[in-house]
């Protein structure tokens, strides 16, 4: 038989090697190989046993289609696209469409887009299918670049090439031509023409959406990129129009065999058989509208950022905390939009990763320091060496800035894993920064005074320490959102978080804010002595920068104070449950194979190697459980939270909602205090870090 190789003798040779009923296993054959291996003759696992109907086997992509069929096919194609990106894979969604399979198979042979015929509808169908296939290719690339395969996105491309080398402009041109052809059709019903035109426009918008990560935004300049906004708004209107159409009658017209398991059986498929997966019409339209709305929101918010503080708030509250609400397309595009291959931020020709890292530091501790000006005032040889050492530190800080952004763009589960990994990096960088800054002071007296005392300010160390503490707190509290903790552990989590928050607040008030206020006082004093107007203008610019930094500091401080008070009160409430016998946080249940100390040590293992703040021990944990609780004080503090936080000056809507949810949590815990029942479970509260106790 042509195209086949006879391996009978090889099979029998290998069978002969099996002796004593033992399986011969290659050392390279691991669990992953086993899981991916296809088991012949097992219906659940052997794609060769897939049964196809005559219509499916003999489906002809080059037969004529009418407008109703065309509409039906395109609708199912759009549903398949959204189904793939709803945690499914290509073979059971898009490649189940024979037109898609034909395009990718022909492309391997001809390196050209496929035309299904010369007549109007065939040309329209061709351009639409080619458009969708091109977008699949783009999404595969996005997935390979910034998403996790089989986690955020599942490809299984069956060795096909999804028009990777075809220029997107060519695809767009074809789609635009098809829209014109549709409008000019004389033989078709006007209402059908309108639907088909909208479908083509929608596919066009989908293909155009990756423009986002090619835009070059000048950060903080308020340049709104109106043309892309219009594309997105039109796309939203198109989806809204299509959402009103009942596609059932059109889908009934789709030729039999057009969507099948054919590709699973006929292409180079390493996967197990899968049922075709198709999400509902309603979900398809909702997802499509969500995607365009999300992209629009990203565009508008990112182009209207006024300064680095707004960028930080956007990344914290609109990206990091909201990331699981974003569609996978949005998540992938967002990461590519934020940081480009050339390390530019939002594609800015002038604002690169190194600028971002410096700005993040300026916005915390570095503004108007000897390190921001790099004016060392030392001899030329020492200066050269110092510059080299400082550049090394800055390179490490760039890596941290990059990692901080990557963390925010990943799904919430990944965020916690990435935080864990980066804690070691931050801890060692903190030591390096401290050695660098102290050595510079000892050798060259390079230093900015923290305040009126002689204490060193250590702005670089201080920044890294702050970021490390932020991540440690996020790591613990995010575990609550991800439902990682057993009820018996929950006290320890809030107790440890509260300890970290205490350190963070102390660092904030005694160092960061003190230092920034002191710098401002010094600038004010300097300004008073100046007579030259241009020098005054320069000083005023620096003063304004510091005023903005301090304002941002105060907002962050308010957030962490609120978290501190909540964790403090929750710790006390839980401790009171323990003291009153409604919960037991010192003994493990009777069947546990490990003791409480082992559980405690495994849970806080990520902090075990952290130098500062020192890790809390299990003994300290046990002692904490014996501290008396004044419920009156808890009630008083929870009651006052609502009065204490008005959030004036908070402009970011998601930030505002997050803070309000924290305040609401305080009221929720007040209500909980009325109950004297045994602590049984954690249920959803107002804020993911603060569940309700039942």
């Amino acid at each position, binding site marked *: 038989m042509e195209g086949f190789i006879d391996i009978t003798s090889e099979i029998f040779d290998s069978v002969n090697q099996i002796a004593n009923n033992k399986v011969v296993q290659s050392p390279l054959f691991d669990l992953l190989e086993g899981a991916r291996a296809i088991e012949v003759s097992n219906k659940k696992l052997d794609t060769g046993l897939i049964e196809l109907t005559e219509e499916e086997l003999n489906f002809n992509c080059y037969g004529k289609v009418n407008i109703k069929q065309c509409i039906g096919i395109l609708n199912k194609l759009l549903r398949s696209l959204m189904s793939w990106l709803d945690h499914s894979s290509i073979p059971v969604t898009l490649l189940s469409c024979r037109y898609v399979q034909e395009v990718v198979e022909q492309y391997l042979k001809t390196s050209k887009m496929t035309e299904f015929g010369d007549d109007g509808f065939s040309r329209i169908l061709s351009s639409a299918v080619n458009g969708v296939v091109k977008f699949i290719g783009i999404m595969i690339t996005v997935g390979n670049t910034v998403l996790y395969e089989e986690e955020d996105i599942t490809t299984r491309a069956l060795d096909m090439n999804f028009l990777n080398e075809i220029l997107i402009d060519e695809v767009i041109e074809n789609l635009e031509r098809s829209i014109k052809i549709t409008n000019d059709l004389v033989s078709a019903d006007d209402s059908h023409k309108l639907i088909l035109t909208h479908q083509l426009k929608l596919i066009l918008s989908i293909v155009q959406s990756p423009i986002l990560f090619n835009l070059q935004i000048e950060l903080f300049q308020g340049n709104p990129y109106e043309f892309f906004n219009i594309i997105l708004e039109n796309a939203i209107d198109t989806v809204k129009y299509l959402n009103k159409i009942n596609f059932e009658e059109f889908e009934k017209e789709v030729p039999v065999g057009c969507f099948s398991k054919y590709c699973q059986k006929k292409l180079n498929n390493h996967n*197990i058989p899968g049922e075709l997966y198709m999400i509902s019409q309603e979900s398809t339209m909702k997802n499509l509208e969500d995607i365009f709305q999300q992209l629009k929101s990203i565009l508008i918010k990112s182009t209207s950022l006024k300064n680095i503080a707004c960028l930080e708030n956007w990344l914290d509250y609109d990206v990091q905390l909201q990331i699981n609400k974003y569609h996978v397309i949005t998540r992938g595009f967002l990461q590519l939009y934020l940081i480009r291959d050339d390390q530019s931020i939002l594609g800015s020709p002038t604002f690169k990763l190194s600028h971002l890292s410096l700005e993040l530091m300026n916005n915390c501790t570095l503004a108007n320091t000897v390190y921001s000006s790099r004016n060392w005032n030392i001899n030329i040889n020492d200066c050269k060496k110092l510059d080299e050492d400082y550049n090394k530190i800055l390179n490490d800080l760039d890596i941290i800035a990059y990692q901080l952004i990557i963390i925010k763009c990943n799904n919430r589960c990944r965020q916690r894993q990435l935080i864990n990994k980066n804690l070691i990096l931050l801890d060692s960088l903190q030591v390096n920064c401290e050695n660098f800054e102290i050595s510079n002071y000892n050798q060259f007296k390079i230093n900015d005074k923290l305040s009126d005392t002689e204490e060193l300010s250590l702005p670089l160390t201080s920044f890294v320490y702050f970021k490390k503490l932020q991540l440690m707190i996020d790591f613990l509290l995010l575990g609550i959102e991800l439902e990682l903790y057993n009820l018996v552990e929950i006290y320890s989590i809030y107790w440890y978080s509260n300890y970290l928050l205490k350190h963070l607040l102390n660092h904030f008030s005694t160092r960061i804010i003190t230092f920034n206020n002191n710098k401002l006082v010094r600038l004010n004093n300097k300004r008073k002595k100046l007579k030259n107007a241009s020098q005054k203008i320069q000083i005023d610019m620096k003063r304004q920068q510091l005023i903005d930094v301090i304002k941002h500091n105060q907002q962050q401080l308010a957030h962490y104070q609120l978290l501190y008070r909540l964790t403090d009160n929750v710790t006390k409430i839980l401790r009171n449950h323990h003291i009153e016998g409604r919960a037991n946080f010192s003994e493990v249940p009777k069947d*546990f194979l490990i003791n409480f100390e082992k559980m405690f040590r495994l849970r806080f293992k990520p902090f075990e190697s952290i130098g500062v703040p020192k890790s809390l021990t299990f003994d300290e944990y046990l002692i904490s459980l014996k501290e008396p609780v004044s419920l009156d004080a808890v009630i008083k503090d929870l009651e006052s939270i609502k009065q204490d936080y008005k959030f004036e000056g908070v402009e970011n809507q998601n930030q505002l909602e997050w803070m309000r949810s924290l305040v609401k949590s305080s009221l929720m815990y007040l209500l909980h205090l009325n109950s004297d029942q045994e602590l049984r479970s954690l249920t959803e509260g107002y804020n993911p870090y603060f569940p309700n106790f039942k």
Partner: protein
Amino acid sequence: MTDHLFTCDSLTYHRFNLNEEEFKIITNLVSQHLSEPYSIYVYWYFINTWPQYCYTVKDEGKIIGVIISKINNHKDVRIRGYIGMLVVQDDYRKRGIAKKLVKLTIENMIKDDKVDEISLETEVINKGALRLYESLGFIKTKRLFKYYLNTHDAFRLILPISEKSFKRIAFLKH
């Protein structure tokens, strides 16, 4: 029978005795109850390499439960036991059989292979499995996004055994 380990509540616990008939029964039992479709190679991978960690429970000679596990050298620093599959037939549940199988596996892994920790994954929505493992002291260390083919998230659970389990991998490599 040489593979018989002990009897409890008139059910007999066995170390799996490799034979075709029982192999088929086990694979059927697992495929009926677990969401992930495993190929014959996965079963062979476990049972052929670590037959000592495949246990069955029988009622009057009929297999009604099974646990399949393995041992691996995790990142070259820790010996990690891994519970791959655990199934008890529906009508035999809530009798502590699964717990006995898990304990049997853990005890032997500690005794024979001196494991540093034991790990497994389970679906976030599999409350029964979570209750079982958490009641034994397994700690949920990670949530794995869309881990299973059915798109459910998973939890990774760890039972720490030795001191090595409390150290970060980076600090065990030196």
